[in-house]
């Protein structure tokens, strides 16, 4: 009987100590881990849409709560500010819309006047050779300098953007994502620069 | 349906867990000397991997993720596997003693088989649902068994062949596995 008690006690103590140490380690490294994941996953896109800054947009990121998802959990969005001399000159953040095959995630860079500084496709599942060609600079470069207006649409819908030939849905998807990013810009700008 | 067929082909041939993913090596070379032990090990592996993956999926989905405890995945999974193997051992010893004796020492040894933990973690990483996870675990372990039986067949022949003394044993075993892996590499183009 004493043996059984000893076994249970020893195992419980070991497990408890382990749980304590691990939970401490988790807390201590959480920030750094988030930073690393963001850096390696998002940095290329962020670098592609922002220019002329002297800070680390990922380190200076601002996390905003924007609405709730289906399960009622708040959706957290990372906004990456580009600064020069301490002042914010542009913001970069992600947006997504359905293309032809699925969700297309884009990173959009917008300067403080609401002008697009760059668009970069982060993930997509479009058809290779057709819809997938939206990632090419020939397509994404068209968005530079545009603002939220009727020009920011594909040519078929009366705008200035040349869609990728044979991939109207994919092109429209990117346009929708970019427009959505611009639509929330003033609200995001207010919260970040405050 | 075609998804599952694709998964089957992928797990058994293209991404064979031992020949392509390097999981489950330790016992691989130790057990592949005789055909009957190889078959016994294969059955045990299929059984444990499938059960373990189901159990770990349930814990991941209903305990680890909702409580933000994902960093405890490794320790939780290995404890589940160790406990599962222990329970299976006790159950078989009481209910199906012949099977228990046939599997022998391989059953407890499976706890440290990287393939078990590996397949469980892979299923989570690939974000499979419950049914897909069980299917994936089953076919992956079948692929392992297949490779094991193939290797054993070859090694049994090698045992009676003239081999330079320094190559005998593990050394030639590894080279054989390498050639087997090379053959399976030919399947790489099958699944896009």
């Amino acid at each position, binding site marked *: 009987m004493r043996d059984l008690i000893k076994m249970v006690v*020893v*195992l419980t103590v070991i497990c408890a100590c382990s749980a304590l140490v*691990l939970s401490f380690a988790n807390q201590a490294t959480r920030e750094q881990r988030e930073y690393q994941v963001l850096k390696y996953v998002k940095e290329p896109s962020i670098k592609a849409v922002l220019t002329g800054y002297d800070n680390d947009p990922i380190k200076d990121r601002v996390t905003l709560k924007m609405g709730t998802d289906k399960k009622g959990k708040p959706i957290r969005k990372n906004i990456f500010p580009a600064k020069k001399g301490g002042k914010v000159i542009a913001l970069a953040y992600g947006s997504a819309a359905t293309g032809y095959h699925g969700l297309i995630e884009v990173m959009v860079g917008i300067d403080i006047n609401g002008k697009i500084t760059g668009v970069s496709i982060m993930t997509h599942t479009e058809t290779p050779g057709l819809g997938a060609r939206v990632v090419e600079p020939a397509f994404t470069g068209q968005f530079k300098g545009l603002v939220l207006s009727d020009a920011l649409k594909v040519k078929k819908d009366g705008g200035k953007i040349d869609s990728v030939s044979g991939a109207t849905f994919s092109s429209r998807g990117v346009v929708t994502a970019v427009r959505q990013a611009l639509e929330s810009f003033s609200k995001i700008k207010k919260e970040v620069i405050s | 349906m075609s998804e599952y067929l694709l998964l089957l082909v992928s797990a058994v041939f293209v991404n064979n867990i031992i020949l392509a993913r390097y999981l489950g090596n330790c016992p691989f070379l130790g057990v592949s000397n005789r055909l009957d032990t190889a078959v016994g090990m294969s059955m045990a592996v299929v059984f444990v991997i499938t059960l373990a993956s189901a159990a770990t999926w349930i814990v991941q989905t209903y305990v680890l993720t909702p409580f933000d405890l994902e960093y405890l995945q490794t*320790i939780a999974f290995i*404890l589940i596997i160790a406990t599962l193997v222990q329970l299976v051992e006790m159950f078989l010893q009481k209910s199906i003693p012949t099977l228990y004796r046939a599997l022998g020492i391989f059953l407890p040894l499976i*706890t440290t088989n990287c393939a078990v*933990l590996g397949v469980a973690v892979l299923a989570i990483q690939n974000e499979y649902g419950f049914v897909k996870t069980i299917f994936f675990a089953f076919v992956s372990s079948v692929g392992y068994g297949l490779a094991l039986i193939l290797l054993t067949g070859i090694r049994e022949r090698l045992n009676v062949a003239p081999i330079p003394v*320094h190559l005998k044993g593990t050394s030639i075993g590894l080279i054989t596995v*390498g050639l087997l892996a090379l053959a399976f*590499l030919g399947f790489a183009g099958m699944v896009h």
Partner: protein
Amino acid sequence: MSVAREFTKGLWDEIPPFRLVLGLCPTLAVTTAAQNGMGMGLATTFVLLGSNVLISLLRNVIPKKVRIAAYIVVIASFVVIVELSMQAYFYPLYKVLGIFIPLIVVNCIILGRAEAFASKNKLLPSIADGLGIGLGFTLSLTFLGAVRELIGAGTLFGRYVMWESFEPLSIMVKAPGAFVCLGLILCLMNWIGAMQKRRQG
């Protein structure tokens, strides 16, 4: 055996995975480049050292019947610490080693040393044992990684070192190359071992 001897045995006589044929899974998987082999070796050494220390300290406290379970909890805890640390401070290496970092927990070397040594020896020899075997493992992995990287990609630690017209044998960085390479190195070590024995007469 003296403490120094406990340390050096891990560097040749009982070097894993060649002499002490354990820990094969990661050996084959991560040795696609010297750097990766070294990274994995050091991570494993950290876990091995930590678990040896703790298990040696607790060897008279843990009841025999539950020792395996206790060892697993200790080892797994160190593995999680390594996982978190690598994800935070060595992210590129963490991505490359991938699934094999959590698999350190089932690396037979660690459980093997815990059961065969740390649970029966005092603290200092256990530290020496863990350090020696861990470093031996790191050496093996780095060596195997270097061979595969050199022949399979023409680089060493990421730097291009082979001559201009060298055509890499890329099969070396894939699964078949790993197995064959390890098999040949093992053969070589058997041969060296036999020569040593003959010399000692």
